[in-house]
């Protein structure tokens, strides 16, 4: 029997309340499947399961009581021969249906990758009835979406915008009964508001609403805890470098000219990809400080600081960022930002970052001096892109320039190593076509 515990939910996030289960006893669960929703001070998180098996027992019931990380949540009976090797955790990969890159090596070994199974589960599609069109006959997300067109009845997920879902959940409105006026019948927030005026509101049942009063205050306390810990424990050093973005922006503009809006790449994706590749050259900045020692990470899971409109921020991970194409990076970034702002993140995204990138330039400052998020050992900051005079072949020219900064943990690295990261970042951004 496998004990399914409440997993780590990110730095200084030791408690969470269980909002709901997405499985019931007797259900088969797969690696990467989202099986529960929990809520911490900072976010509502979808909790993934990393085992294959059948749910034997749900030990904890949803409710307002906060439970510690490591609490036994459920028991899962393993399926013989299908159990994951110990420690073979694989983050859920959210591929964009419109930007399907080559299958990842780990996913290719299975007929359907966990994300595809998860998508099929969400949309109520029986994969046994779907024909795969992938390179080795595997079922792709596009296959699943195609199958949805022919699937009707229960199990099919209502298409709705994040805000519409939030509004509907606040008033316990059943979205399946709301006519959608958005793209492809998507239910929009205004549809929900219209429906609320015509449908009597049911009293909320079960767990308390996912947006309790004072979320901004509890998030602020969580940030305070984490940052106070960081400033108390971590001897920061700071480095900065101007990076000429002339070539990168010219290349990006030319790329975007040929693309529809849905396929356009933001400069942020370029900066993230360059950071991820630069980290391959400086692995001692990528990992965690645990038990008075540095544990480097083989994988580069880039935490992305996302500010929220209601205040506060979260820094969930883009997994295996160095292995993504630029299109995949953009799709992941868009997905991550949108889900962060609608409070729909996953537990692994909060616990996995091996380094964080903050892009405060979006909000108008030229230089960021970021604070390391423990237990990470470095953080990269980008300021506002400004036109500045630079020397080109001995002659002055005005180019777009970004101020790239690094805060490093002096217990792990010295300024020299940090400088190598910023140098690599600069070099990579001068060859945007190779990113």
């Amino acid at each position, binding site marked *: 029997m496998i004990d399914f515990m409440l997993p780590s939910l990110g730095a200084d996030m030791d408690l969470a309340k269980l909002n709901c289960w997405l499985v019931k006893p007797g259900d088969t669960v797969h690696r990467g499947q989202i099986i529960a929703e929990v809520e911490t001070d900072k976010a509502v998180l979808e909790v993934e399961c990393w085992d294959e098996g059948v749910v034997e027992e749900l030990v904890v019931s949803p409710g307002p009581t906060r439970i510690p990380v490591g609490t036994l949540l459920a028991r899962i009976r393993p399926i013989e021969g299908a159990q994951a090797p110990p420690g073979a955790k694989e983050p859920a990969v959210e591929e964009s249906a419109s930007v399907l890159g080559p299958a990842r090596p780990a996913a290719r070994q299975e007929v359907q990758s966990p994300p595809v199974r998860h998508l099929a589960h969400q949309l109520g599609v029986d994969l046994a009835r779907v024909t795969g069109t992938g390179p080795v006959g595997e079922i792709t997300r596009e296959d699943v979406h195609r199958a949805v067109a022919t699937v009707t009845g229960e199990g099919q997920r209502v298409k709705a915008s994040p805000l519409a879902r939030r509004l509907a959940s606040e008033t316990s409105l059943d979205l399946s009964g709301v006519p959608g006026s958005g793209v492809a019948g998507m239910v929009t927030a205004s549809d929900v508001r219209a429906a609320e005026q015509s449908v009597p509101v049911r009293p909320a049942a079960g767990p308390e609403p996912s947006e309790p009063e004072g979320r901004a205050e509890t998030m602020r306390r969580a940030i305070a805890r984490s940052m106070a810990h960081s400033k108390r424990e971590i001897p920061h050093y700071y480095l900065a470098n101007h990076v000429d973005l002339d070539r990168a922006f010219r290349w990006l503009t030319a790329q975007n*000219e040929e693309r*529809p809006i849905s396929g356009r790449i933001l400069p942020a994706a370029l900066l993230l990809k360059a950071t991820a590749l630069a980290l391959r050259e400086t692995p001692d900045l990528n990992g965690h400080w645990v038990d008075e020692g540095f544990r480097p990470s083989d994988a580069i899971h880039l935490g992305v600081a996302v500010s929220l409109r209601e205040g506060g921020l979260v820094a969930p991970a883009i997994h295996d960022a160095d292995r993504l194409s630029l299109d995949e990076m953009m799709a992941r970034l868009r997905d991550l930002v949108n889900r962060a702002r609608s409070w729909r993140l996953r537990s692994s995204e909060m616990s996995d970052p091996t380094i964080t990138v903050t892009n405060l330039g979006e909000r108008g400052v030229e230089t960021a001096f970021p604070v390391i998020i423990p237990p990470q050992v470095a953080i990269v900051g980008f300021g506002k892109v400004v036109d500045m005079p630079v020397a080109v072949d001995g002659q002055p020219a005005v180019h777009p320039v970004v101020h790239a900064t690094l805060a490093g943990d002096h217990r792990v690295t010295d300024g020299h190593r940090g400088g190598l990261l910023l140098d690599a970042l600069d070099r990579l951004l001068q060859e945007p076509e190779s990113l």
Partner: protein
Amino acid sequence: MNKEQARQIIFEVLGEIAPEVDPAAVDDSSDLTEQLDLDSMDYLNWMLGINQATGVEIPQRDVSRFLTIDGAVDYLVDHSG
């Protein structure tokens, strides 16, 4: 599409991105990203939503027309059927 219809769609999509925004309080002629504290992802999502709602494609070279509500309204009126 007339100006009123274009404005309605523009604010409908904006409401999905920045729900707290009161259309009556927005200055239609000043920079939207500064006024509403939109970042580049918000801005891209806004144009994508307008594109999906209206079918009007917005080439990269025309993105600057969407810096203000007035500019966006005029663009949609000019480019819708």
